[in-house]
């Protein structure tokens, strides 16, 4: 048994050998295939709820075979804090989909596997989704290196792989036709969209402080390019190792004539980073623009963060409920169990990763829309599913897409949407600017539709 989410009404075990379970590769073990299939789905020692239910003659609640979505989640490792919220959002999204009748009348079942935020394990998990759990699609990965490590296998196994990663890797053309990112925008579009506002409102001489790994490098490169186009300049680029725990020694490198500080940090030490930045500047800080990544899952009212007052943040999705701005936000918050401050309704100290987790909700709704458009029956229709999603373009603002309207680029497999800028005021984040989708567009780097399946 792997995490079959309680949200799926159907907890029964798949029949031992279904036509849908046929591997997509040349058959070679016809005699032992049945044995093999049952071994794969109900391995001897595993006493999962599913197996026991099947053995005890559990009567299936619905006659429809469930749609199995493999959820590649960071349960352990450096991404675990995000993984937890991705998990909750996924559960809520699936509950809603099933309450509305599932996908094409079939209930959705989530099969979750921990990838340990590790690319090797990620690839092994993809293998499991196809061979062992007979999933229709895989989804949900956040950290770029896990995505890149897993995508080749997904492509080889012809498994549609919907990632929720923010990385530019999908649109860069590095991956394959089976990997898509339709539910969350990528770092290149986010960064590019920020440059006009920052250069126009805060200053043109920017010092960048970023995490010294691929994600941070993307920020460095794309922002430098975008701000130069606005007549600005990045006068210092300070790279900080993502595993760093003491940050004060980096701040002296900030040039005195900096007009704007731009920061984006990731990892468990982000709070220390922001705190020490405040301690360094004391009362004389220049304007600061950061990405909310530096504070995801961290309470803005934490001690030591008072200096953030008056500074600005990019927010993928505004953490604090903004009255009158987003008609679908309230319903979305209620469904995923988040209060108006962006924290868990059961524990006000448990702050969510609000700017990223919506990607799971929206992606699942896109999978549903794609499957219904393609009249998806089983793994043989995977290519049709991909084509159906590639054909999508405008996704209007709705409860399916609570973050905002999206424009999906079927050729690059990447979606584009509105980006938000908020200001810290009275210990809360207040939305001050929303970009248009046009602000975030950039030229295509690849056309996956020309690649074969």
């Amino acid at each position, binding site marked *: *048994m*792997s*995490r079959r989410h309680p949200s799926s009404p159907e907890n029964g075990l798949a029949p031992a050998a279904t036509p849908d379970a046929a*591997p997509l*590769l040349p058959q*070679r*073990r016809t005699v*032992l295939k049945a044995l*093999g*299939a049952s*071994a*794969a789905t109900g*391995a001897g*020692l*595993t*006493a*999962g709820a599913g197996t026991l239910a099947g053995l005890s003659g559990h009567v299936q609640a619905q006659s429809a075979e469930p749609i199995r979505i493999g959820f590649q989640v960071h*349960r*352990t490792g450096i991404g675990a804090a995000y993984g937890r919220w991705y998990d909750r959002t996924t559960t809520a999204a699936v509950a809603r989909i099933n309450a509305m009748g599932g996908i094409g009348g079939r209930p959705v079942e989530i099969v979750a*596997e*921990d990838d340990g935020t*590790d*690319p*090797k394990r990620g*690839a*092994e998990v993809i*293998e*499991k989704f196809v*061979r*062992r759990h007979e999933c229709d699609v895989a989804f949900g990965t956040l950290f*770029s*290196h896990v995505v*890149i*490590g897993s*995508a*080749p*296998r997904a*492509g*080889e196994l012809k498994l549609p792989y919907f990632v929720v990663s923010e*990385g530019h*890797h999908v649109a860069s053309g*590095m*991956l394959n036709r089976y990997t898509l990112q339709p539910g969350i925008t990528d770092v290149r579009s986010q960064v590019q969209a920020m440059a006009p506002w920052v250069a126009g409102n805060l200053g043109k001489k920017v010092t960048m402080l970023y995490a*010294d*790994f*691929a*994600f941070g*490098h993307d920020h460095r490169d794309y922002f430098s390019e975008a701000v130069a186009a606005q007549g600005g300049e990045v006068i210092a680029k300070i790279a900080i190792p993502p595993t760093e725990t003491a940050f004060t020694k980096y701040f002296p490198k900030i040039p005195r004539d900096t007009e704007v500080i731009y920061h984006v940090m990731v990892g468990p030490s982000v709070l220390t980073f922001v705190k020490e930045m405040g301690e360094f500047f004391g009362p004389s800080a220049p304007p600061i623009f950061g990405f909310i990544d530096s504070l995801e899952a961290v309470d803005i009212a934490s001690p030591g963060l008072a200096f953030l007052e008056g500074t600005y943040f990019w927010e993928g999705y505004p953490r604090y409920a903004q009255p009158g701005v987003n008609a679908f936000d309230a319903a979305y918050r209620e469904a995923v169990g988040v209060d108006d401050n962006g924290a868990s309704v059961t524990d006000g100290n448990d702050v969510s990763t609000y700017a990223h987790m919506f990607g799971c909700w929206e992606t699942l709704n896109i999978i549903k829309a794609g499957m219904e458009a393609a009249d998806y029956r089983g793994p043989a229709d995977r290519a049709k599913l991909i084509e159906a999603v590639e054909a999508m373009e405008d996704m209007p603002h709705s409860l399916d897409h609570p973050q905002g309207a999206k424009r999906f680029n079927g050729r690059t497999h990447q979606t584009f949407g509105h980006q938000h800028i908020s200001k810290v005021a009275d210990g809360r984040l207040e939305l001050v600017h929303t970009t248009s989708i046009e602000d975030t567009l950039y030229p295509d780097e690849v056309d996956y539709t020309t690649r074969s399946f």
Partner: protein
Amino acid sequence: MNDARGWLLHLGLLAALVLAWFVLPAYHTGNLARILVLAVYAAGFNVVFGYTGLLSLGHALFFAAGLYGLGLSIQHVGLGVLPAFGVALGVSALIAAMTGYLALRTRGVAFMIVTLMFAQTGYLTVLYAGRWTRGDEGFVIARSARTLFGLDLADERIRYFAALVLFAIVFLSLAAIVSSGFGRALVAIRENEERARLLGYDVQRIKWLAVILSGTVSGAAGAAYALLFGYAGATFASVQYSILPLLWVLLGGAGTTIGPLIGTVFMFYLVDFASEITDAYLLLVGLALICLTLFLPRGIAGELRRRALPWLP
């Protein structure tokens, strides 16, 4: 190998692995392809740790050398698979020779730390050279580039047998080496270095050769991993990947030829099985490790050799 039983065991095991392709379900053969490559890595580590008695915490350096040696050659230089593999082997051997020469000036825990430091340097250099290596994110090696003699290495069957061929070559070669004079010298050094020196063996040189052999085999595993699974990333150069072969070898049986494979298979399925039962599978793995070292200290094959099959090579 002098003992016929030893040969029978080795060839029998290989035959079983060939048979496994036809008998096991796709899930397990997919896993086995991965396991076989990692077992090659474990076997390489075993040379230095199991046979020579040197605890190295820096083998990820050699694995990564092979991984990137092949990966970068294909990606940025456009070499074919075989030349790239050759480059990978050459680079691993060279790095093993250089770092080994320096590290072998130390012993015991100092050796441990020095090897660890060299591996860390390698890891940091991979990150630093992000322009080519893409750092921690890594890069994908296109399927079209991973063909050998017209065979698509990403195809399930070809991949499995490619991994098996590599494993077989390493498995049999190492078996032959450890039962040769050189291998016996390694064991002698492990058991009592002073005595070996007094008997006239050039201990430093022999240890150095062991490190080079070990590093090259580990590099071959790294290159094979990049080639067969299409991804190279800095994670494989991190400390974790220096500890893993140590675990595999200790669990399977250090100083035995089949130990590395057994250990790798065991750890893989332990994690797999445990993650089916609970989210906290690392807890189960940790408990399993503790139990294993309490009750089977010589590893599975090691205990087998001690209690039942003393002829086990």
